[in-house]
């Protein structure tokens, strides 16, 4: 039973970690914390559902279309709203992301209605037995793809020139523009990548978690908790924090009280902020 719970926590936690990695890259480069990211996850999952189930595309093509669609959504968000207000006070930017939170929720309710949707899993093989615990094929798919995606993002962020530019832009927007970094283009790219990461999380979460318009807040707060746990703005920390978050949540649900699962994220946030504000891997910067 314990092993089963740990596996379930690990799987859902790796989905959280891809959500929080998506938020972290955006935060690291643009210093915008996207309160609408939970909704991006939902929208991504639902777009995938539309392509795959309603339009009957095959799996890889649907994933590709979803990613492209999410990137377009992210780039549009940046071009239409966030680039013009890049110098505005932070309160305004945060409120704009909150605006997107409700906007996307409304769009989802409008187009896909309120009932939960379950996109089909990627492959449908018989579940694997492991020391008495059961792992479905979707669990394995999630673990593998999250591992690949997270390593990809971490590699881009820490070891490529684009990542270097992103970190430079985060440190000083003016300074980065002065040394010839095209920050506008960079930010548009990052918004696209961030929303696409959210969409991927939606695709992976869909079959095990279900997709519905109000899921965004729950996902968002768990991703926040993961980010806080891993040290705010630390991309590797965010990935690990997500997994810890998933496991803690499931353990609390099993051993203490099931409804408590909903607010475990907040308790984690508050206790991390009180006892170790830098998180497990972070350095306090602001």
């Amino acid at each position, binding site marked *: 039973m314990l092993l089963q719970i740990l596996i379930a926590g690990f799987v859902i936690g790796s989905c959280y970690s891809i959500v929080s990695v998506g938020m972290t890259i955006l935060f690291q480069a643009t210093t915008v914390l996207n309160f609408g990211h939970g909704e991006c996850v939902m929208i991504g999952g639902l777009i995938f559902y539309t392509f795959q189930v309603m339009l009957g595309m095959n799996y890889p093509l649907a994933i590709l279309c979803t990613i492209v669609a999410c990137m377009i959504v992210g780039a549009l968000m940046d071009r239409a709203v966030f680039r013009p207000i890049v110098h505005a006070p932070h*309160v305004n930017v*945060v*409120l704009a992301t909150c*605006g997107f939170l409700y906007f996307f929720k*409304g769009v989802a309710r*409008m187009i896909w209605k309120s009932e939960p949707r379950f996109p089909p899993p990627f492959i449908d093989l018989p579940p694997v037995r492991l020391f008495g615990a059961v792992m479905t094929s979707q669990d394995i798919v999630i673990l593998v793809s999250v591992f690949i995606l997270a390593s990809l993002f971490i590699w881009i962020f820490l070891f490529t020139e684009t990542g270097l530019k992103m970190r430079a832009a985060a440190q000083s927007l003016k300074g980065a523009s002065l040394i010839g970094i095209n920050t506008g283009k960079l930010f548009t790219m990052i918004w696209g990548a961030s929303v696409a990461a959210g969409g991927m999380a939606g695709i992976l979460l869909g079959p095990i978690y279900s997709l519905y318009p109000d899921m965004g807040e729950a996902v968002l*707060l768990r991703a926040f908790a993961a980010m806080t746990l891993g040290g705010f703005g630390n991309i590797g920390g965010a990935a690990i924090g997500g997994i810890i978050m998933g496991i803690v949540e499931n353990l609390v649900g099993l051993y203490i009280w099931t409804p408590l699962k909903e607010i475990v994220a907040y308790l984690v*946030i*508050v206790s991390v902020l009180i006892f170790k504000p830098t998180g497990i891997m972070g350095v306090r910067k602001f």
Partner: protein
Amino acid sequence: MFILIVFIILLACLPKVTNNYQQYMINLVFVNFLVTLGLGIVLGYSGQFAFASAGFLGIGAYCSGLSMVHFGLSYWLALMVAVLVSFIFAVLLSYIGLRLTRYYLSISTIAFTLTMRFFYTNAGAITFGPSGFNVPSPKFFGFNFDTDQRIYYIVLVIVLACSLFSWNILRSKIGRAWVAIRDKEEAAAAASIDVKQYKRLAFIMMGLLGGIAGGLYCVVLGRITPDEFGMGPLLLHFLIVVLGGLGSFSGLAISSIIVTLLPELLRAFAEWQEILYGGIIILMIRFAPEGLYGILQKISVIKWRERMYGDVEG
């Protein structure tokens, strides 16, 4: 001054011409104005990301409602209890809040709001769980405030008193200190403003206004459920604050009227509500960050007044 008195007399005469439902909506406008006043002060004046307005509204409503139901207190005592409890919560939250900045603060205040909501939903023995409970109508020396028109007078008096109080605070040393802290914290500290103390004060101000508004909210609604205090109302408060203009008093009044009555005008488009609200927030931030007050200024209604009277407002 004369205009103000006429305005207040007109407000006091309002229940003569309204039916119950209209009066109920007007009461809601006032409550929304009061709670967003607190949020507007903390966001627009002191520049802190404290998204706890719905949380304090809930504390106020549940404290006053429950102390009436469980302990049989009169409404006025219950309102005192609500104010006291929200004050205590505001002080406690400010101790956490002052150690945090920006995003940390916004996250922990949202967490606070949702934790309170979780408590209302799951502590069924105390809070009557997700279905909520009915609030008894307030009495005053045998006079029963049982209709919306009668409740309106409670709401009117308390909201006017609170607005006068906040209006004076905003124009005092405290208000100026908040603006200074918002614009540049280091500079404010260098000008010997006790940054921590004033930030705490802004927090407490939000808590108090939210708590009082909550106390009014519970009698205005007559029945409270946990869903009144989650993320949905927070959207409403954001919308009012953004539409009115961050940190503008008269803009807030206009936008709380518009936002509260908007669902009525758009009843045919109920499912568009979230899109519309979110869209308005985004568009306002993008094109008119000063809000309605700024727009009014631009189309020079206020400029005209300045030219006529040489008057300066706000």
